[in-house]
């Protein structure tokens, strides 16, 4: 920026001198905060596997060419991709004979929801995963919407082809 100098530095990236003002992020739910900050073995393991926990819970799948040569090397963790990256979402119900994935885990065969999720990533701790899932059902609006859709599908007089619209703005 024009006025910034070595002796009199000006910082713009954070908020453009107050021009950008966004709503604060609400306080993190207790269960999650403990896992993100505690130093006990369980929490440390959670942070180590946080990307796996996230993909078990996520609605969308991320497609990108991840450069594995840096993710598995020594030194600090780095995430490097090449080419395009995009988020994809499938249908509410899985195709005949296929296992539910991503958003479908919130809809399909939810009596075994925990087992289904656990089957996707067997190396995750089932208790931690349960706790996170319960938390999401309590606070996350998208999870609540998918639960609503699931209940509608489950009712006897369900319409044959329910559609869910996620509003863009």
């Amino acid at each position: 920026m024009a006025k910034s100098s070595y002796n009199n530095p000006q910082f713009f990236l954070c908020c453009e001198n107050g021009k950008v003002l966004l709503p604060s992020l609400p306080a993190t739910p207790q269960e999650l905060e403990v896992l993100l900050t505690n130093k006990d073995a369980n929490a440390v393991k959670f942070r180590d596997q946080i990307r796996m926990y996230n993909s078990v819970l996520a609605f969308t799948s991320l497609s990108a060419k991840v450069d594995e040569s840096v993710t598995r090397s020594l030194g600090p963790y780095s995430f490097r991709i090449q080419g395009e990256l995009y988020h994809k979402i499938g249908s509410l119900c899985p195709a005949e004979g296929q296992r539910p994935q991503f958003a479908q885990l919130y809809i399909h065969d939810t009596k075994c929801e925990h087992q289904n999720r656990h089957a996707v990533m067997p190396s995750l701790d089932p208790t931690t995963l349960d706790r996170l899932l319960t938390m999401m059902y309590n606070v996350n609006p998208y999870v609540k919407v998918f639960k609503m859709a699931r209940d509608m599908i489950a009712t006897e007089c369900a319409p044959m082809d329910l559609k869910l619209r996620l509003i863009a703005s």
Partner: protein
Amino acid sequence: MPTTDEVATSLVGDGSEAVDKRDVIIAQQAGPCQRISELHVGYMALHYLLLFPYGEDGWHPNIPLNGVITDADLDENHVEKVKLQIKHCNVTMAEFYGYRLQHRDTDGIALLQGDRLRHQYIVDAYVAIEQSRLKYLCLNQKKLRVDLYQGL
């Protein structure tokens, strides 16, 4: 914090009523995967559930800058004048992600404590910014008068 009513509606029928083309319509029956626009307000929240447990709103094209009087408050002539004086009146994608990645005492900690997931989020955000910049170049060839530069 968005509420359930604000993030989605359920439709019965073909869902072909006039809608914002960035809206995501998910059908019950299996079909091909669809891509979510990076201009969708839930683009990040739908993937990074652990970073945005409350489904916090992400960037969308109509977030006004602080202190900018919105169009609704003004008559048309005045809007034009204000728009000329300041280069832009909405928060850009780069400004949005730049703002979010600063530590603030008032913010929840999930995003910045997210460890490896945060790394991924940052890469994701940067790609989203780059992709929209490229899209701008692609869609504004006339305005940029690229034909003048050809053969240089």
